[in-house]
């Protein structure tokens, strides 16, 4: 019988996901426990039972770091767009049409996403951004992850994860893949951060029990106590990750490794496995960078958006194959949109209003938000949709108390069906 690791070594992607999920279903039908992760024998199918379908709602956030250029992603038919971008506008012949929409089209790399829109399972939010924007990456990112609560040390999701009673027993309750995710940071709550899933495992030389021993008793030094808490969180996360993805192979250099690099296709493949597992996962943030396209934007953004389009498409198919479509909402965020006028380097500088996307059968499909190229804010798209509107929908989806994160509801636009 093929082991789970063997499946993974065959390659990442949909076929593998489906194969694993079918194993999981078989296993569930045989009556394996669903509520908690069972002990597993390396190489056996036993661990596949963690891929059984859980029941709660899950949110997956895809963070596009650097400020994705909104106008070349969801392209307006407004002629002023082409005037502002003499060499950077997407040629009309290459645009991907959106069913029932005449004033917007998609970048060709996002063609895999058009069918979701046509089916009413995708929405696009042009012009999203906070009022009074600044063009700093860091100010913009801070406002996004804090939900504009300047000075707050907690993120908009961390504030509700603080209240989650399962946090202590659920190491992967909120998981950041690819880079840290400050939006998950709570007063007490700390997310699991997995920068490289391929090497997220302890070495043979040091087993988990040494770290759990070192974590007790808690030191009176605050920094040492934090380090001890990090031992427990890390050992838990490594254990859950191994249940999900199998043990890594130990290499001759003694760093544990699994197959796979990190891009959105790979990150979202793992996010899908997390979302349909019974590991108690509620939130996954998958981050990729490279969107700060000040120069030579056309080629760079083309490949970045291909990764996004293919990644989201494969993710949605994996979730559907697991029968979990009704449970999993995916949303994309980025710090800002870019300047309307292209610059002299074949790129675009920092701007204001951006673009978010939502996927899943629970979304109110369509275009929500507006961009008026005749009414710019110092050359930038004027923000017309508060990001907290998106957050309200996401928090509602999680069944979380919106007010405790955002102070109040921002539901002037209903983004969930």
């Amino acid at each position, binding site marked *: 019988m093929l082991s789970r690791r063997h499946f993974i070594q065959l390659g990442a992607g949909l076929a593998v996901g489906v194969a694993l999920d079918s194993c999981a279903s078989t296993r569930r039908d045989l009556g394996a426990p669903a509520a908690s992760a069972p002990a597993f024998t390396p190489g056996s199918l036993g661990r596949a039972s963690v891929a059984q379908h859980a029941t709660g709602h899950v949110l997956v956030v895809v963070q596009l770091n650097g400020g994705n250029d909104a106008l070349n992603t969801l392209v307006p038919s407004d002629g002023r767009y082409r005037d502002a971008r003499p060499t950077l506008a997407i040629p009309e012949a290459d645009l991907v049409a959106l069913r029932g929409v005449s004033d917007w089209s998609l970048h060709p790399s996002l063609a895999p996403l058009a069918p979701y829109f046509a089916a009413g399972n995708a929405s696009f939010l042009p012009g999203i951004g906070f009022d009074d924007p600044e*063009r700093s990456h860091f100010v913009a990112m801070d406002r996004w992850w804090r939900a504009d609560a300047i000075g707050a040390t907690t993120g908009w999701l961390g504030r509700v994860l603080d209240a989650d009673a399962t946090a202590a027993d659920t190491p992967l309750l909120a998981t950041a893949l690819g880079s840290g995710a400050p939006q998950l940071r709570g007063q007490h709550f700390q997310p699991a951060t997995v920068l490289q899933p391929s090497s997220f495992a302890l*070495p043979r*030389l*040091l087993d988990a029990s040494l770290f759990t021993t070192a974590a007790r008793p808690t*030191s009176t030094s605050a920094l*040492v106590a934090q380090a001890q808490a990090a031992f427990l969180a890390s050992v838990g996360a490594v254990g859950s990750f191994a249940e999900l993805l199998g043990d890594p192979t130990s290499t001759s250099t003694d760093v544990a490794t699994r197959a796979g690099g990190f891009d959105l296709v790979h990150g979202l493949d793992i996010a899908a496995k997390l979302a349909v597992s019974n590991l108690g996962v509620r939130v996954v943030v998958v981050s990729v960078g490279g969107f700060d396209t000040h120069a030579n934007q056309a080629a760079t953004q083309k490949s970045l958006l291909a990764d996004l389009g293919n990644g989201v498409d494969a993710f949605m198919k994996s979730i559907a194959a697991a029968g979990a479509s009704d449970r999993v909402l995916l949303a994309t965020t980025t710090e800002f949109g870019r300047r309307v006028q292209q610059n002299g*380097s074949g790129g675009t500088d920092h701007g204001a209003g951006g673009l978010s996307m939502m996927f899943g059968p629970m979304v109110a499909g369509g275009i929500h938000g507006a961009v008026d190229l005749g009414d710019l804010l110092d050359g930038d798209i004027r923000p017309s949709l508060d990001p907290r509107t998106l957050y309200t929908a996401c928090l509602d989806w999680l069944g979380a108390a919106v007010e405790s994160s955002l102070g109040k509801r921002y539901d002037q636009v209903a983004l969930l069906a």
Partner: protein
Amino acid sequence: MRAVDDRAALCWLARRAGFGLTPEELDAAVRRGPQAEIERLLSSEQIASAVSNRLWDDADLPLTNKDRKEGVAAIGLWTTYMAVTPTPLVDRLAWMWHGHFVSALDKVKVARLMANQIRLFRSAGLGDFTELLRAVIIDPAMLVYLDGAQSTGTEPNENFGRELLELFTVGLGAFDENDVKAGAAALSGWTVDRQTGLAVFRLRRHDDTARTFLGREGVHDVDTVVGAVVGHPQLAARIAALVGGELLGSANEALLAELTAAFTANDLNIADLVRAALSAGVGGRAEPVVLAPVPWLAIAMRLTGATPPVGALGLGLRTAGQVPMLPPNVAGWPGGVAWFGTSTVVARANLAAVVANNTPGTSTVLRAAASNDLTELAVALGLVDPTFGDGSSSALAAAKPGVQRLALAFCTPEFVVA
């Protein structure tokens, strides 16, 4: 009594102003005493010695080559050099400037340009700040990384102009959008000659219009931009806070004022600022900090004399979230308790295992780990306070004496927090 205090001071100095010292090196430093050691580390002999070693052989880093292989080798060489450098303060400061004046190989692509930028930080990183800033502005890797190389007078690119002010110098609140534009225009025309890898100034790509920049009129070129930046009332305190934060953890208002005064006393001399910070540190005025993965790894390698395979180090550092020459964005690496993230904890365990497994049997530190005296181990590791807390002690006692105990010791909070 003095000897005990001096040892603690020099343990602190070794871990925070360098990349650790072997027990034998530490003994020699203790004999010299803290102030003499600080002066030795800052001496012109140290700087001359550092400059005379160019680290990379240019023949290994052809300008035409954008291969990943060259980049990995360039990163590996620098990482392993930190563990053996005879000029630890020079290299520690070069590492700090790399995290401040950020460029990254994934965008710069040509490893030689990154190596040249690190060479600049090694040669000018303890000198005159004005000269360092001027060199950074027209550094080829920087011109590529923040798009200055593509910025022209008719179509200025704002990327460098913004980060120069926001991240590198005066900070948010000290400038507005007009300053970003004026700076970009004044610096236009500087680009990189791909044949030589050097910065060149192309007059026809330059906008020489005199503009107001940071409140100063007549700014139109590199020198007037540099003049306005270093003349800004917030500049000295910002750089003092950077150095104070890096070397002392955090600096309170009084200490920051002292550092700023030391920095401005001699026209922004970086060595004066560093001397003031280190003197405060050996005087017990530093806060504890979480060592970032790279300095932490370099300390572990220096202590043990381990020379592990570079590939294993690269993989571990990637998982830890800190690969030299590959900072995550223009703000550099997040610091402090961000290094308690799960990925970093797991990566430290893997890297610690790699180092311990590659430690020569003759190592004093390994012998200490093989003994049953944990205090001996703490002393050999150069801990400022040579004791382990209760949690670490029980785990170290449970670990197998020798390689396993040594690897675990590198992961303990006592070793990770300096």
